[in-house]
């Protein structure tokens, strides 16, 4: 009788520990993962030793390898407000649906005139879309207006968020809710392109800028 039992039990392995481990890892990765966002451009940022993390309320300007400019704003309410102001200034009409879609988008990079068409596209089409980015030259500086209205909108949402947090008795720091300006530049981009954007910020008296970098080990 024991001869029959042995071959029966030996080939099957108890998988429970392995399954435990696998699920533990799955849970860990699920919680720890932050996905690559669906940006219209891929940008390879340079590295630095800085260990400051990205703040909450940001206005992000992306500059790709060719110097094209893309803008993003972190809060959806602020995005709507920014678009409405821009729409009034440039006399480009948007439907309710388009504004809603714009609020949920990531970075965008096209002129104001192209924007309604740009909003209608899918993420993949936007990547293929042949654009010069947001115009930022002296004759047609749309970037300046985006930053101007973006700043106002982000200030407003920051303020409401601050008030909300105060009402909840969290004793928040007002500076944490103010918009921060972040530049995401491609390492290979010529600095002049970045300088143009930086000068636009400085024209609006926004002098405290941040560069996105990937982390690097500090030398001992």
């Amino acid at each position: 009788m024991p001869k029959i039992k042995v071959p029966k039990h030996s080939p099957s392995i108890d998988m429970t520990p392995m399954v435990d481990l696998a699920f533990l890892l799955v849970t860990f990765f699920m919680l720890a993962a932050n996905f690559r966002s669906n940006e219209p451009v891929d940008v390879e940022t340079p590295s630095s030793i800085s260990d400051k993390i990205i703040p909450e309320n940001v206005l992000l300007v992306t500059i790709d390898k060719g110097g094209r400019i893309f803008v993003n704003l972190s809060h959806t309410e602020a995005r709507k407000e920014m678009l409405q102001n821009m729409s009034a200034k440039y006399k480009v009409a948007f439907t309710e649906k388009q504004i809603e879609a714009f609020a949920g988008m990531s970075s965008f990079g096209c002129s104001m005139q192209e924007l309604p068409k740009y909003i209608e596209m899918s993420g993949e089409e936007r990547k293929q879309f042949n654009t010069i980015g947001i115009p930022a030259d002296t004759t047609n500086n749309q970037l300046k207006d985006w930053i101007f209205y973006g700043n106002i909108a982000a200030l407003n949402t920051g303020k409401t968020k601050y008030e909300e947090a105060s009402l909840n008795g969290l004793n928040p720091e007002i500076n944490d809710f103010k918009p921060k300006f972040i530049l995401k530049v491609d390492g290979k981009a010529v600095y002049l392109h970045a300088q143009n954007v930086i000068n636009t910020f400085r024209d609006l008296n926004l002098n405290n800028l941040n560069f996105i970098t990937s982390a690097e080990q500090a030398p001992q």
Partner: protein
Amino acid sequence: MAEIAEGGGGGHDKGKKRAKKASTKVDMTPMVDLAFLLLTFFVLTSTFSKPKVMSLVYPAKPKPNEVIPPAKVNNGITFLISEDKIYYYQGQFYTLGNPDGKPATELKETNFGPTGLRKLLADLNSTVLKNKEGLDKQLKSKQIQDTTYERMLNEFKGSKEALKVLIKTDDKATCKNFIDLVDELKIAQIGVIAPVDLLKSEQDLMKAKQ
């Protein structure tokens, strides 16, 4: 895996005997398959290192009809960046045949490596670095608080002995060059960093060097 497969095969051969005995056992293989599939997916798609930010305060733009006298910086150094190349000169810039009768400024070349730029900055900014070392020790032995540490460090960085840096870029410099330089300056604990416009005479000097 081979063993598990064998087990499955065995089950087939003597299916009836197995079914009776192992009725409470659930076959976990599909679940494990799924778990590992998910695991692989998350491992491959997740980006771990959250990007960091490096802050840089630019000088405010002068008002339209405001004339700012050229700042007299003592203990200043100017870095000129071109495509992957970096030059520097110390103190003020003098053109050939200037009215003050000073010798014309010559550019020196260095590199982005630890033997070039980092060593240069460490030498020039040694007082601040030395003071920082002392502060670090005090902080470690808990003689001073975090806030005091920050305040004292900023004081040292803004002191007279501290090195002040101007950065000028030409039209070939890449953002990577710029950020690498600023990074090195932060490593060397330099408090005053000012990116400014390149002068024509400096550009000519750089061209001559290349």
